[in-house]
């Protein structure tokens, strides 16, 4: 649905020139929620802004819904943008217009006439749960309500793609959750492809099907979450299940086991202790629902060296579990 291919973008000239995007390629499937995570300054904001050409890349091509947006002339680009909704971190609502007026702006732009404008704006406000605030001005709304207006505005033109530029970063955790739920709902009900950028792993965990990690303008890793969590050494997976550092003074073999899909509800640890007659200690564990599946990661300490535990580890791997050695032994 969105295909970003070998895109580069730099800012400034001469010695002050910085490369914000360095040969970035990404593939976002139809109907998917795709999250790009990275630190501030990693280039994620530039990346999402190249998709609707608010930022024109220096090189590379971007295709949205079969249309190569990077080669469109001004007029066609405007039409293409009408099919690409965008939500902003600071909402960017017109303070001079009411909630309804803000939504209608999107419809005025595409030339929908007065009567239909009103009814369509009403429908969308209903969808985002803001019908009662239609005549309020943005200054009278809370952050979460403002973002709902932002989402409603972005949906008014019936886009096939939604870009979310840190949509929840200015919101408190509770509001964040409700906004993410709303994004999930519209993704499902309107069959909308969502590309979002965030610095919060929680956002990825809660709603994304796929994710990419961006660092210094380069994509370090990308893929479907269900696959990433069973990829050895995946940094996204490690960030999804933060287990912290290995406590000092552990003497045995420390391993991280990742459970996903069917293995999550099997008594793996009890079986391990029984079959290999070892005293397993649990150092840490976390269970998350990722992309709709239960998945978890457990850190275990097994007495002895990795060599003496080789049989036990091989046995775990034979069950389809991802086992990684941690600490000195790794």
């Amino acid at each position, binding site marked *: 649905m969105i295909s970003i291919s070998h895109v580069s973008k730099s800012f400034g000239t001469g010695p002050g020139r910085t490369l914000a995007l360095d040969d970035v390629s990404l593939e976002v499937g139809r109907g998917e929620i795709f999250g790009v995570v990275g630190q501030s300054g990693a280039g994620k904001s530039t990346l999402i802004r190249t998709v609707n050409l*608010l930022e024109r890349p220096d090189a590379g091509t971007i295709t949205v819904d079969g249309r190569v947006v990077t080669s469109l002339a001004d007029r066609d680009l*405007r039409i293409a943008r009408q099919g690409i909704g965008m939500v902003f971190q*600071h909402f960017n*609502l*017109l303070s*001079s217009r009411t909630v309804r007026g803000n939504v209608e702006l999107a419809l005025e732009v595409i030339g929908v006439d007065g009567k239909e404008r009103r009814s369509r704006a009403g429908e969308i406000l209903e969808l985002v749960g803001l019908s009662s605030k239609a005549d309020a001005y943005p200054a009278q709304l809370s952050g979460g309500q403002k973002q709902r207006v932002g989402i409603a505005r*972005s949906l008014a033109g019936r886009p096939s793609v939604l870009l979310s530029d840190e949509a929840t970063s200015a919101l408190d955790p509770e509001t964040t959750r409700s906004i993410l739920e709303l994004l999930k709902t519209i993704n499902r009900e309107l069959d909308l492809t969502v590309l979002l950028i965030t610095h919060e792993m929680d956002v990825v965990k809660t709603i994304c099907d796929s994710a990419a990690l961006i660092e210094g303008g380069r994509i370090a890793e990308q893929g479907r979450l269900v696959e990433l969590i069973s990829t050895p050494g995946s940094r996204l997976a490690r960030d999804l299940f933060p287990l912290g550092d290995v406590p000092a003074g552990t003497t045995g073999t420390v391993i991280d086991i990742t459970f996903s899909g069917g293995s999550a509800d099997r008594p793996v640890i009890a079986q391990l202790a029984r079959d290999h007659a070892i005293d397993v200690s649990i150092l840490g564990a976390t269970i998350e629902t990722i992309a709709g599946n239960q998945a978890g990661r457990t850190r275990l300490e097994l007495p002895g060296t990795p060599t003496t535990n080789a049989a036990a580890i091989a046995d775990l791997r034979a069950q389809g579990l991802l086992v990684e050695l941690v600490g000195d032994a790794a």
Partner: protein
Amino acid sequence: MNDTSDPKFWSDLVDVLILGTGQTLYMVSIALLVTIIVGLPLGILLVGTERGGLFASPFGSRTAGRVINRVLDFIVNLGRSIPFIILMIAVIPFTRLVVGTFIGSTAAIVPLSLVAIPFFARMVEIALKEVDPGLTEAANSLGATRWQIVRKVLVPEALPSMLLGLATTVTSIINFSAMVGTVAGGGLGDVAFRYGYQRYSTIHIVAVIIIIFIIVQSLAAIATHFAKKYARTSSDSGRIKAVESLELKAATESR
């Protein structure tokens, strides 16, 4: 001649004041209209042709944008720096060309507009620069044209601030309109000059001051009323309060 016991003195006074007030209001209102019609687009162009602005590259050429920006900026600065009395004399050939004469209230509208346009254009420029660039970006993301962005985003969002600028502009037009009395432009300035200065009539001067004060205050009050009406953000309201308290001062300061 200044015999206040003569009933004719009072009826003359009233006649003179009514005529002068009418001429002042006529000059000021037409000049204001011209100022808005020319100054608003000029202010929009001043901001738009800046680097990264909406009209940064007219006809696809950044050089053209830069040239337009420099030229407009120069004209505005020039207009702002010339003392009004000199400007008024300097533009006489132009006034003649436009109105056919350089004497009278209609002719006075030309220099009044010329002095107010650059002033108001700067006010518009400042007001537009205060609009969050994120709003232009949002409109762009919706696929809006540049014209739509100007009309539906920039101007409405900058409106409270522009109305405050208009209040200040009106005050300065009234101020300058008094000066055109010296070149036979008529108006209350003319009344003050002919009766107050040449005939030592204190009553005329006091009356003129009172009328001008009322005109300035009521026009400024109207502008701030609308500014307040359209203000939707706390920063707008703060600015209006500040302007309200400065209004009396501003009326005298721009002199």
